[in-house]
């Protein structure tokens, strides 16, 4: 026993190295498996506050740009008002179901930390569980989709950006509803791919790509991007579509967190259904 302790003491540097390195690697790999890492993220009290204060200071430099984009958004929303659309327009009832119930509510938030050149990108916003934000809610901006909420603290949330290796969502070509899975290959922050499209039909460059109702995170038919090119995967029957994102991640300042109010109902129903099939 004595010699064992002597051995430990003689090699204490190596053992401390081993301990710290294994702790760090455990953090790396446990996070990759989507487990909750208690505090190592940018939504905890200290990091959130620092980023928020810094964001308050730098936000002034982008006021003009922001005014322009908010004005454009106002104009778009005005065009959706009942007065501006005919009675049978689909757009004017986009947030209500046929019975007139509200389907989605939106919580505005400011981006306080954002990267888009890493292989896996995260966004931190200044709203959290105190404002009703929950894990797995979708996040959009006026021009397109942004990501999915991953971690929530009382005042801040961390979002997995569309520009992240583990971000997936089902999207569709607007004109013929051909669907596929949106993925990012980690290279260009403006281009994403849609994989597993079975038969895209005849498409043209510039065709709109939108979200589908199969994703409970985003409102149905919300813009994702426009088609750049497409082709058949070698050795496969599926097509891959190259899409230019409509969200400009380099100027992300204001976003909306989407709360799909019927999510619990829908999920419960689908779970019941699945377990019945299993039986």
């Amino acid at each position, binding site marked *: 026993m004595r010699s064992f302790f002597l051995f430990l003491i003689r090699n204490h*540097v190596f053992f401390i*190295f081993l301990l*710290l390195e294994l702790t760090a690697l*455990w*953090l*790396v790999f446990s996070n*990759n498996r989507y487990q909750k890492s208690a505090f*190592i993220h*940018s939504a905890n009290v200290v990091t959130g506050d620092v980023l928020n204060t810094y964001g308050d200071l730098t936000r002034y430099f982008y006021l003009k740009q922001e005014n322009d984009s908010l004005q454009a958004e106002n104009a778009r929303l005005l065009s959706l008002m009942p007065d501006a659309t005919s009675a049978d327009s689909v757009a004017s009832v986009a947030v209500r179901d046929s019975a007139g119930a509200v389907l989605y509510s939106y919580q505005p938030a400011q981006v306080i930390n954002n990267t888009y*050149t890493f292989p896996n990108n995260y966004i931190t916003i200044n709203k959290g569980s105190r404002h009703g934000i929950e894990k797995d809610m979708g996040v959009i901006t006026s021009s397109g989709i942004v990501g999915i909420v991953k971690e929530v603290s009382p005042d801040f949330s961390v979002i997995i950006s569309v520009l992240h290796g583990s971000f997936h969502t089902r999207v569709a070509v607007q004109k013929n509803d051909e669907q596929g899975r949106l993925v990012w290959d980690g290279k260009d922050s403006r281009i994403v791919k849609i994989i597993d499209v079975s038969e895209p039909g005849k498409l043209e460059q510039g065709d709109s790509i939108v979200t589908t109702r199969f994703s409970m995170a985003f409102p149905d038919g919300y813009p994702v991007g426009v088609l750049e090119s497409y082709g058949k995967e070698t050795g496969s029957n599926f097509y891959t579509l190259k899409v230019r994102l409509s969200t400009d991640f380099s100027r992300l300042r204001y976003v909306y967190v989407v709360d799909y109010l019927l999510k619990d109902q829908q999920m419960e129903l689908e779970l019941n259904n699945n377990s019945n099939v299993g039986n």
Partner: protein
Amino acid sequence: MSAINWIGRLLGWLLLTAFQVLVLTQLDLGALLHPYVFPMFAMLLPFSVPRWLVLVLAFIAGLVVDMFNNTPGMHAAAMVVMAYLRPAILKMLTPVSGYEGIEYPSFMRLGFIWFLLYCLSMAGVHHLVYFQLETLSWTNFPYTLLKSALSLLVSVFLMINFAFIFSSRKSAERK
């Protein structure tokens, strides 16, 4: 080592970390250029600091940057490897006159070439480990290597500038 010395180092660490997470990480220099200057904190610790303490401080410095960047454990892992190899790298680069009478790996005392080589090897270790953990795949290794090398050049350039600013300020204080 005096108490003042430690307060100065703490401030230096805060400054480097703030510059890293608020300025450098937010810069868009493309997918291949991701410079990191904060490892400098552990690189410039005095020779008299025990090895285990260098490891612990490096781990903490890495973890703080990880929190801001949402890269849990990646910088901490890279910093600990770098800190563990510090004595070996210092030994490899021992100048002819040794390190006698020198307090810390200083640019003023050990010369520009020595400091450049020291930064390249230490930050090189950090960058390689970090970028490898970031991609977590060996198939992209040539790309990771290219990214590490290009980022390293920018990082070392910034580190030398920082070292220059700090040391000139210190010598100005002495007068």
